[in-house]
């Protein structure tokens, strides 16, 4: 337990200590983001298709929200 606390203090200290001297820099540079820009990596590729799938689920499942699809919604009794 005491060793765990000591380890946490050491890690937290070194992380925050490092920040004071030099703020954390973005470690993935813009020229390294080619793969992330590929459509295969997109969170959503088609807004209509996402909305349809969301609607199909919304009217059948109790859960809702936090899908990342903006706005929308409809009355579905």
């Amino acid at each position, binding site marked *: 337990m005491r060793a765990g606390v000591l380890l946490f203090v050491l890690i937290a200290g070194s992380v925050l200590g490092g920040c004071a001297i030099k703020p954390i820099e973005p470690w993935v540079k813009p020229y390294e983001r080619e793969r992330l820009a590929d459509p295969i990596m997109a969170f959503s590729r*088609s807004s*209509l298709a996402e909305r*349809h799938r969301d609607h199909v689920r919304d009217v059948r*499942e109790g859960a809702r929200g936090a899908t990342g699809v903006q706005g*929308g919604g409809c009355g579905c*009794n």
Partner: protein
Amino acid sequence: MAATDFWRRLGAFLGGLLAVGGARAVDLPGDSAEAMFHSYSGGGVTANGPALLVRKSVMDKVSLSASYYVDAVSNASIDVVTTASPYKERRNEYSLGADYVYRDSQITFGLNRSKEPDYTANRYSLDITQETFGGMTSVSLGFTRGSDEVGKHYSPEFADIATHWQYRVGLTQILTPRWIASANFEAISDDGYLGSPYRIARVFGAAVPERNPRTRSSRAMKFRVNGDLGSHDAMHVEYRYFWDNWAIKAHTLEGGYSRYFGDRWLADASLRYYRQGHALFYSDNAQAETTYVSRNRQLSTFDSIGLGGKVSYTWRKEPGKYEVKLNGSYEFVRFKYSDFTDIRTGSAYGFNANVLQLYVSATF
């Protein structure tokens, strides 16, 4: 002294985050158009129709979008065939949106109207996304306000309303040149008529109109990771946890794999598992008189498993000018209910559903 030092260092860290975000500008969504035919069939219900979406930028500052969506529903679900007659109806949905970009921020305003013969829903939403930390992090905040008018066929004396408030916050973080993650949280509150004037509950075996609370409040959080696997392929995993004050708790777990075949074909496969517990006032056949009672399957204990596939083909392409893709997707879903009895057979209810999408998408 130590505490002051801590805050100073934390301030330096956050200051660093903000400072490096200043140099990069957010891109406005590109001009695009989509035309889709969608279809759902399962459990005696079919819903299909066309959907259209057009997006066009104006003066490189604002991107305007408009969409039209039709659901032609034919309903002979278990609820309908055991208590009423099958019916057909049509739902039309219209949406307008405007995206505005200023430096590292994107502001999106949306309007949405959905209309069917006995239900009209209006929504407006505002979302703000801010890129920071050299474009590695983006933070979003959003709000939707909705108001519905609820009616009932052949019962002009029935008229009620429902209002909805949705608040969401999201974070997207680039982890490495190949991995990106997101976290989303959304709180939704409802007030008004939150059931169906047609639905029947069972109390001591007798059919009675359902009685739902007039307020509901829910929370959901989702985590997602996308990864590039290095051979023209990628994967994603996501998990959502949902809970509300009707005592429903739900878990959603989804995984997917995507792969290019040549430079024109892209295929996706996904598997989704969903599970929820029932609402406090849900009962298959209530054995006590309570203030609220419902036999709405959506509020029951059930799970579903969905297996989906999608194929995209780049039909026409002129680099830097336009691109036209043909897409098809299909998902098979199996629903299995634990505490909803098929009163025709006396056994637990379950059904299979097919979800199909065929669409053309173009960027120009």
